[in-house]
């Protein structure tokens, strides 16, 4: 099948699903009586709303093309890094490494993807960024907590910029029999779909059957039952969506499993980080605005691995 009809089927399907989810959310909201049930329903409705905006953005990106998608993810990286650094204690001596991260590393990383320079974009931040950031910081001459400060900046840049940028980097893969017809954008959609489905289903299964907590201190809502139930349904959805990918149904299930596992680890690791910074949500810690990292935590871990596995096994 060509990309156009696939795309319309996909969007049509998602819009119908979202519509059903929105109606169910409204009904649940009317029936919720206790405080805790209201919190759960609000949380689900919030996710549904996030999905509506994501689908709107996705449709827009599909019609205006690859560069627009890159700009969009560049803005997401910028906002995610802004959130990360806001919650990280930095000092005035960190001004230049931070300025370098925001105004040079973010645009350059996406520019390199835009011009298809795989060899440089895949090492740009881990090598050049890694070495230049402490050099700039050292010039400021403040040695107090130097290692801790610079490590936090490097971490923020790696997660919010480098890792996140691997999601739109899927657009530059050359998968024979797939990329020629411009279908890579569906691969990006596949990644985001599995990550989100895994998150939502784990939440739902956890609420319904959750008993055994996996890491109570780090992330109290993650349970073994939720993880297995949610993970398995996300893998099943992944297998069922094989027709939008270059994979066979079995391969697609395997890929979905990788995405689910990495997404789970991402949620866990970033939850530990925000707790060590004294926040519960990236969003609520910053009054009035935030939450970009809450949406991108699983994506940031899943995207690079999904990118590289696909590249290794499915491109010449």
């Amino acid at each position, binding site marked *: 099948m060509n990309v156009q009809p696939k795309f319309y089927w996909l969007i049509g399907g998602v819009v119908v699903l979202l519509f059903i989810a929105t109606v169910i959310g409204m009904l649940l909201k009317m029936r919720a009586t206790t405080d805790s049930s209201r919190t759960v329903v609000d949380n689900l409705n919030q996710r549904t709303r996030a999905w509506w905006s994501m689908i709107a953005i996705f449709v827009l990106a599909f019609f205006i093309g690859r560069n627009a998608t890159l700009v969009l993810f560049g803005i997401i990286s*910028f906002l995610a*890094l*802004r*959130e990360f*650094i*806001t919650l990280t204690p*930095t*000092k*005035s001596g960190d*001004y230049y490494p*931070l*300025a370098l991260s*925001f105004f040079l590393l973010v645009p350059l990383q996406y520019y390199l993807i835009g011009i298809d320079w795989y060899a440089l974009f895949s090492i740009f931040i881990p090598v050049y960024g890694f070495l230049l950031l402490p050099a700039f910081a050292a010039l400021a001459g403040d040695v107090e907590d130097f290692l801790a400060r610079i490590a936090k900046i490097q971490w923020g840049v790696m997660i919010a910029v480098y890792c996140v940028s691997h999601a739109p980097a899927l657009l530059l893969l050359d998968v024979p029999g797939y990329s020629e017809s411009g279908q890579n954008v569906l691969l990006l959609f596949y990644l985001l779909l599995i990550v989100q489905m895994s998150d939502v289903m784990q939440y739902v299964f956890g609420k319904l059957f959750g008993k055994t907590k996996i890491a109570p201190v780090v992330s109290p809502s993650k349970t073994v039952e939720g993880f297995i139930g949610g993970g398995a349904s996300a893998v099943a959805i992944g297998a069922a969506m094989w027709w939008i990918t270059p994979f066979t149904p079995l391969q697609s299930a395997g890929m979905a499993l990788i995405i689910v596992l990495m997404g789970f680890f991402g949620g866990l690791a970033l939850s530990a980080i925000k707790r060590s910074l004294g926040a519960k949500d990236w969003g609520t810690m*910053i*009054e*009035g*605005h*935030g939450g970009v990292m809450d949406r991108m935590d699983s994506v940031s871990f899943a995207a690079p691995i999904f990118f590289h596995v696909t590249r290794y096994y499915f491109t010449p």
Partner: protein
Amino acid sequence: MWLSELLIGSVRLLVGAYPRWVRSAPSAAQGIYFANHSSHMDTLVLWSALPPELRRQTRPVAAKDYWGGSAFHRYVSGKGFNVVLIERAREDRSVDPLQPLYDVLSSGQSLIIFPEGTRKPQALPDPFKSGLYHLSQRFPNVELVPVYLENLHRSMPKGTFFPLPLICTVRFGAPLATIENESKENFLERARREVMALA
């Protein structure tokens, strides 16, 4: 005007400038918003955080030596966010440097001022200069609203020329209560504590 929109848009993208009304609500009454001062962005950030209908009747007070320094600065500060420029150096002792502020208040508009007088490297404010006291004496019916600007000392520390993108929250407190026959020192210290209480 387009320049105001551009400035507000840039401020939002860089530092957010999200307003937060702490145990208070935006009020249409004439007011003096006073805040801690740590960067050149402060004026613009506080002004951007005000609801549009209040912003239209509010004029930030800015130092003539910075915002009136070059033709560019004068254009941006005047057309963009409608500042009142005041003299910090005070060469001419015969003129009250606060006169431009009295004029603005007499005309019914609100003011944004930074009573420390100059930017400080730390988040919490230093002791206030007496300007706020004189304004409150002359215009007892104008509400004095304490404001705390968070994170701006990190975003644009003294000596740097471009703000870092860090999310800045603007916290508005409840207007200062009036206390009869309060001494200048007590009044200024109380006002400062109100700002610090919002931190």
